[in-house]
């Protein structure tokens, strides 16, 4: 037995038939392996080529192995004859084994010794000078699993002589793992006993790794195809069958991939009916290469409608005949929805733009070379200016020219400014529309700078003409109300809920004697009479809460000068929309005059009732006594009582007449009927009327008559004279004289018109100077007690004044206390009348 590998190889060779042909397959094998090595070292894209080469290499190796087996046998036969050739062959074989990474071995079943070729040591990562290993040592280098498989194959080969081929791994001493393809075959001795096993071990690690890489790549592709949302597909054009459809199909369509493999036409059934024609048509274009992409809708298994976009490529054979369709289909429902939303939004925007009431939207552009122009204007512009959007877009100066000149200048400045600073363009402008009517517009536009250096403003223009008109109307109305407030002939104040004066008008200031400034620093409480404050506050909460809409109270304000001023207050609160009280409006009416009149009225009623009761008491008394019958037997007594009744009823009539005539004169209900009358007649009639009264008191009435014709109401003049005369009688002492005169005189210094001046003079007690004016007012008497004694009503002189004034004359009195009074009154002659 040879102790070295070479020796062992030699001994192997001795038993092999050897032929020159052995070299033939060796050369291409070497070339193939070389190429493979190069390919594996380069790009992974050429993996396929690598695999191909590897395949060839393996095939070649197999052929080579077979040939070697064969040739070795032949070599053995000719060994004896050609020692040189053998040596040459030995060297060649060694080289060949090296190149092929192929080791050979022999196991002597009798001695259990193993003989390895040199290359096999290298494959196992051992030095070629390493001593031969035992069978167990070799088996120990093979990892679990692989070892068992190999052992089974070896046992089988020993048992029945069958050759085996096992792929297994080995662990090299340096820890690396190699893949080997081991082949073995049993060899029987002459007596057909299995005595030896021999075989080869080919290092297929590189191929194995390439296989694993391929497997991994395939897995990765599968993973990718499974994971991708896009559906990838390959359809054979020849059979119409699906060669491949990725799992995403199930996710998107909701049908199984299997269903499509089974029924390739089913994809047409899933197309949304409306799109079927389109898809069919487009699919034909796809075949002619005109169209690659198709967008269509599908109906998924659960009835949803989804948008799909597919992009297909036609794979052709070398002759240009279409073989397959390869493509991707993607779910573009979301994109379609976004697109639809966008379209919808644009339509909406356009609709808004076009239907903006009293306004339009626009896009203004400024480019360095074109200047300002409009890229978009909505339809509303026509309603406002009468210009169509198209016209203005074509010729921006149309709009520009319609601007009022000063606004155009201002607008130009603002636009330049906005252009420079990218500031908001916001202004109000006036334009003349095509009907030459001026319109107020307000605009706001936001600028943005574009990449090409142009500037774009997105803006809106709104017609505010009516707003402006309303503004003016409001201003006018405000002025109106302000003047109504300021110039009101009544005090008006706005008062806060806690009583501060917020606003006061001039009348109130004058009434209270404060300046506006002073009053605005005060609260109404400060200047309300303390006695009236409680009453003032009582209604306050109700009106504050809105329970009462209006509060009317009488109270007293204290003026700056300290005077109590009785006022009638009307208060109403202004609430905001939530009902929160904002301020109250107070109307302050000075009721001093009113109170005075009321007081006078009370007095009047008191006097009148008293004056009426006196005659009524007499009349009633005397009549009742008569009625009782006590005077039936005493006629003179009865007569006496009757006279009492008659006298008093006369007095009552006179009193009532006076009251009535005063009331009628005062109210203006009675127009005095004027006529030509003789002054003397009037004087005499008056004397006649008063004479009995004068006689009672023994008073003499002296008269200076006048012959003149007067345009007057005779009854009126007689009443004046009678009133004056009877007053004079009342205030004259017993036996006195009353003088009555009448004379003509000029009405005034400048006029030639004549008047009659009447005078009635008495020598009574006279009238105090401070009463000279007021005695002509109603219910004014020198002394309240006068009315009782003199039977006056307090109306007589008022009646006189009224009558004289209705004649265009005047009445007055001169008096000296204790010496007497003279009453004067004038009546224009009125000759020109009628």
């Amino acid at each position, binding site marked *: 037995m040879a102790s070295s590998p070479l020796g062992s190889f030699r001994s192997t060779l001795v038993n092999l038939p050897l032929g020159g042909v052995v070299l033939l397959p060796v050369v291409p094998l070497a070339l193939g392996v070389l190429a493979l090595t190069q390919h594996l070292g380069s790009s992974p894209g050429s993996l396929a080529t690598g695999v191909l080469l590897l395949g060839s290499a393996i095939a070649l190796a197999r052929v080579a192995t077979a040939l070697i087996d064969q040739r070795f046998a032949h070599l053995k036969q000719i060994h004896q004859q050609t020692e040189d050739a053998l040596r040459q062959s030995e060297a060649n074989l060694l080289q060949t084994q090296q190149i092929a990474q192929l080791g050979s071995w022999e196991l002597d079943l009798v001695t259990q010794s193993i003989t390895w070729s040199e290359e096999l040591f290298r494959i196992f990562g051992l030095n070629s000078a390493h001593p031969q290993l035992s069978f167990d040592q070799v088996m120990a280098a093979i990892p679990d699993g692989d070892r068992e498989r190999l052992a089974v194959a070896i046992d089988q080969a020993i048992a029945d002589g069958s050759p085996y081929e096992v792929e297994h791994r080995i662990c090299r001493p340096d820890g690396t793992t190699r893949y080997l393809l081991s082949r073995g075959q049993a060899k029987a001795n002459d007596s057909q006993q299995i005595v030896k096993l021999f075989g080869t071990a080919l290092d297929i690690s590189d191929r194995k790794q390439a296989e694993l890489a391929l497997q991994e790549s395939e897995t990765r592709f599968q993973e990718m195809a499974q994971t991708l949302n896009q559906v990838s597909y390959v359809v054979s054009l020849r059979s119409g069958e699906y060669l491949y459809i990725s799992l995403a199909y199930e996710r998107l369509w909701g049908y199984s991939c299997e269903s499509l493999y089974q029924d390739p036409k089913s994809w047409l059934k899933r197309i949304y009916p409306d799109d079927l024609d389109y898809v069919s048509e487009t699919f034909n274009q796809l075949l002619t290469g005109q169209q690659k992409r198709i967008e269509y809708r599908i109906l998924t298994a659960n009835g949803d409608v989804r948008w799909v976009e597919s992009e297909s490529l036609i794979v052709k054979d070398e002759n240009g005949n279409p073989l397959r369709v390869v493509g991707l289909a993607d779910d573009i429902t979301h994109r379609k929805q976004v697109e639809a939303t966008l379209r919808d939004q644009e339509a909406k925007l356009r609709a808004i733009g076009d239907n903006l009431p009293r306004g339009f939207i626009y896009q203004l552009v400024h480019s360095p070379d074109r200047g300002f122009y409009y890229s978009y204007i909505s339809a509303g512009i026509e309603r406002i200016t009468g210009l169509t959007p198209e016209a203005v877009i074509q010729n921006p100066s149309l709009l520009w020219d319609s601007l009022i000149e000063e606004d155009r200048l201002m607008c130009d400045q603002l636009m330049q400014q906005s252009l420079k600073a990218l500031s908001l363009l916001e202004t109000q402008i006036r334009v003349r529309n095509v009907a030459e009517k001026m319109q107020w517009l307000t605009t706001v536009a936001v600028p943005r700078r574009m990449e090409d250096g142009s500037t774009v403003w997105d803006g809106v223009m709104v017609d505010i003409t009516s707003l402006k008109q309303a503004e003016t109307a409001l201003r006018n109305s405000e002025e109106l109300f302000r003047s109504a407030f300021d110039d009101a002939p009544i005090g008006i104040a706005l008062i806060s809920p806690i009583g501060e004066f917020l606003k006061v008008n001039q009348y109130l200031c004058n009434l209270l004697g404060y300046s506006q400034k002073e009053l605005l620093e005060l609260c109404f409480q400060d200047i309300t009479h303390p006695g009236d404050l409680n009453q003032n506050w009582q209604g306050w909460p109700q009106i504050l809460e809105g329970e009462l809409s209006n509060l009317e109270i009488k109270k007293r304000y204290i003026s700056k000068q300290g005077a109590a001023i009785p006022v009638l207050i009307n208060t109403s609160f202004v609430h905001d929309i939530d009902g929160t009280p904002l301020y109250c409006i107070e109307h302050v009416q000075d009721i001093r005059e009113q109170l005075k009149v009321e007081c006078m009225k009370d007095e009047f009623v008191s006097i009148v009732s*008293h004056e009426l009761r*006196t005659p009524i008491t007499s009349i009633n*008394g005397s009549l009742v*006594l008569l009625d009782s019958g*006590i005077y039936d037997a005493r006629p003179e007594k009865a007569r006496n*009582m009757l006279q009492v009744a008659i006298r008093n009823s006369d007095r009552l009539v006179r009193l009532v007449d006076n009251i009535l005539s005063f009331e009628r004169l005062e109210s203006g209900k009675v127009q005095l009927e004027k006529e030509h009358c003789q002054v003397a007649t009037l004087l005499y009639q008056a004397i006649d009327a008063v004479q009995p009264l004068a006689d009672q008191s023994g008073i003499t009435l002296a008269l200076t008559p006048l012959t003149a014709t007067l345009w007057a109401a005779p009854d009126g003049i007689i009443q004046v004279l009678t009133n004056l005369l009877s007053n004079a009688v009342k205030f004259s002492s017993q036996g006195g004289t009353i003088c009555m005169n009448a004379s003509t005189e000029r009405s005034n210094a400048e006029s030639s018109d004549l008047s009659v001046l009447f005078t009635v003079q008495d020598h009574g007690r006279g009238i105090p100077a401070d009463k000279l004016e007021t005695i002509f007012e109603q219910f004014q008497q020198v002394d309240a007690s006068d009315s*009782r004694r003199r039977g006056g009503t307090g109306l007589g002189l008022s009646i006189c004044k009224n009558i004289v004034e209705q004649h265009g004359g005047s009445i007055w009195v001169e008096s000296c206390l204790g010496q007497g009074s003279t009453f004067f009154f004038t009546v224009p002659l009125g000759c020109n009348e009628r």
Partner: protein
Amino acid sequence: MVARLVLVIEHEACIREVLEACLRDLGGWIIVLASSIKEGINLCEQQRPDVILIDTSTPEIDALLFIEELKFYSTKYFVPILLISSRANWLSAERLRQMGFAGVINKPFNPLTLSQHISQTLGWSA
């Protein structure tokens, strides 16, 4: 029955006349008439009336003074004063007493029951 003496102070002649007729002819009393308070005071001294009827709404000068004098007399001699007034119902009986008046005769009065009314007010037996 003792005939009562009544002093009437009334400035209105007509009313004076009617009062006199009522009280004398219907009441059966002796009537003394005065047209002013001053005159009434003098008559009080002379006639010593049992009651004084007075209308205070007199235009008489210094009427107040005389009324006080009359009240003094009334207190001194226990002679009641009755007020003749058209505003009598403004005052309560209590207030009237405080003012020194025993009662009031309202104007217009009922002539048939006037004497009866006075008797009742003063507690005179009929």
